[in-house]
């Protein structure tokens, strides 16, 4: 790894890769070790990392990133329908189409900054969503979502074989990508995305982006044309969103319009802030946490709760179930909202700030001099 990345970065990458690849074991105690959720962990991890390349580095807060995610999904699905069940062309196609959308939307939106930029991106994304749900139904299959059917042409596949019987599923040169295969496939992309994000963050280009976030005026008077820098970051992050969207279709072959709604754009913002804006690992953690809430917290019904509190005497158990039931199951939104409030009040830098505080507290206790030995190139030391 030497030469490509510093020892510190290599350690971080290897640690991250180990955690990701061991998730099927690590997540088991939390009831999250099943392929579908772990696929989503990977996919939304990619989405959040991509979003963070724009928001974390340049400071431009996009409220419309779900559009690229959705466009990626639709593009991949059309590739499955028209070209081939192979995931590779679908992903390439999706990333390219998402990149084109990002280029156009980014070019227009980046003419403004601050909240004006945010609302422009929101407006573009909401237009995509509204139209996909209604008048573009011939392309998107609207409410029901776009799916594959046996009768699809799939011209590339037909060159080699007849349409096989059974439900078509995406594959990688014949290997089915559902279940655990899908997880490992997505995991490779998450690692690649993480690597890319690391490279960008540590590169001169990344430093320019941070410069834009810190002081755009100074950047201009320092001789940088900031708009193409921001646009490049926007397109990269839009393409990563498209990648995530296509992977969601690869592992779960349905493309629905809801994933383009403003709430979905908001979700990735929340993931990033929750985990820690501008950090490498933070957005991934934020993504995992929110998906965990959505899928697992929401499943704790009274039944599950009463067996969980089974050790309590009858009356106390019922009381515990009632109280806990407000926060899980149908009340999982409440827990999520409270979590946002608590995190942002007490840990403005997100979860990564908490991690940092704890580790520096430990370091201080354990003979403190290392604390000052931060690399001078990363004062924020957020990574």
């Amino acid at each position, binding site marked *: 790894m030497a030469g490509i990345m510093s020892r510190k970065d290599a350690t971080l990458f290897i640690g991250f890769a180990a955690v990701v690849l061991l998730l099927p074991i690590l997540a088991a105690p939390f009831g999250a070790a099943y392929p579908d959720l772990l696929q989503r962990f990977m996919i939304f991890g990619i989405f959040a990392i991509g979003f963070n390349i724009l928001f974390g580095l340049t400071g431009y807060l996009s409220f419309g990133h779900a559009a690229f995610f959705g466009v990626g999904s639709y593009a991949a699905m059309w590739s499955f329908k028209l070209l081939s069940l192979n995931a590779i062309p679908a992903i390439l196609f999706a990333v390219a189409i998402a990149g084109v959308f990002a280029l156009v939307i980014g070019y227009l939106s980046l003419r403004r900054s601050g909240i004006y930029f945010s609302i422009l991106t929101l407006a573009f994304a909401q237009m995509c969503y509204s139209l996909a749900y209604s008048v573009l139904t011939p392309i998107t299959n609207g409410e029901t979502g776009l799916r594959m059917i046996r009768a699809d042409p799939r011209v590339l596949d037909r060159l080699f074989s007849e349409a096989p019987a059974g439900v078509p599923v995406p594959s990688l040169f014949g290997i089915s990508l559902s279940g655990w295969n899908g997880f490992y496939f997505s995991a490779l992309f998450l690692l690649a995305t993480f690597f890319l994000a690391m490279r960008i963050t*540590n590169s001169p*280009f990344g430093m320019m982006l*941070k410069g834009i976030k810190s002081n755009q005026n100074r950047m201009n008077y320092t001789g940088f044309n900031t708009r193409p820098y921001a646009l490049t970051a926007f397109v990269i992050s839009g393409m990563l969103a498209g990648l995530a969207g296509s992977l969601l279709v690869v592992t779960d072959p349905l493309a629905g319009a809801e994933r383009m709604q403003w709430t979905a754009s908001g979700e990735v913002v929340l993931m990033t802030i929750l985990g820690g804006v501008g950090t490498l690992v933070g957005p991934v953690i934020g993504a995992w946490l929110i998906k965990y809430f959505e899928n697992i917290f929401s499943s704790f019904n009274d039944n599950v709760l009463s067996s969980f509190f089974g050790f309590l005497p009858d009356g106390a158990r019922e009381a515990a179930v009632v109280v806990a039931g407000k926060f899980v199951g149908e009340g999982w939104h409440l827990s999520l909202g409270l979590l946002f409030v608590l995190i942002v009040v007490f840990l403005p830098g997100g979860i990564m700030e908490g991690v940092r505080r704890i580790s520096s507290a430990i370091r201080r206790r354990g003979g403190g001099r290392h604390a000052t030995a931060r690399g001078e190139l990363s004062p924020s030391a957020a990574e």
Partner: protein
Amino acid sequence: MQTKGNVVLHVADVQKHFGGLHALADIDLQVDEGKTHAIIGPNGAGKSTLLNVIIGRLAPSSGAVVFDGTVLTGKKPHEINQLGVARVFQTPEIFADLSVLQNVMTPAFARRDGAFRINMFRSVDNERGIREEAEHTLEDVGLMDRRAVHAGALSRGDKRRLELAMCLIQKPRLLLLDEPTAGMSRHDTNTTIELLKKIKSRGMTKVIIEHDMHVVFSLADKISVLAGGRIIAEGLPDQVRGDPRVQEAYLGGVH
């Protein structure tokens, strides 16, 4: 090397109106290569307007600003910088979220890579040349020991040094300084003057906008006095110092 007396910056017959207000009238300035040219004047004399016209932020109502044969009017800030013009602001404009070292490295990239380049596959750690240059520049301004600190945490005087370092590393042909000691303590002002004196010998052309006489007379090779949007006097420091019109403008300006 161009010969002495070569005009680097020419502000040619510039007028600027805001509605009916004449902010600048018939300004004609010539800045010689390698000289430190100060523009002074009381508050409201039009110094900031003039500077903004020079750097292209304001378009003149008539006339033009020519830098080394290129018309600056209508150019974007980054284009002007790429031509070799660096600027120091009244309140130091630095990258508060980056380390001091990164602050100085960033402009070096602008000089090396131009206004835009997607150089995302190299690590900053591997940019030895730029790093050494930046460290050298920090030594120069006396901030080497603070290179790992958040630039936002520096004192005002140190921020000014940092901003100067950011300009110096670009080796600009023309350095514009907008009241470089404004709002500074006596001590910070003196250290800044020392620093400016130190870099004076490097053959860089400088335009200083200032109303602090002490700063001006210790640095300038040539002084233009601006009052009411016009240049009322111009010459060597000693000539200007004795000019009654200048005295009057300053005293009148106070009232």
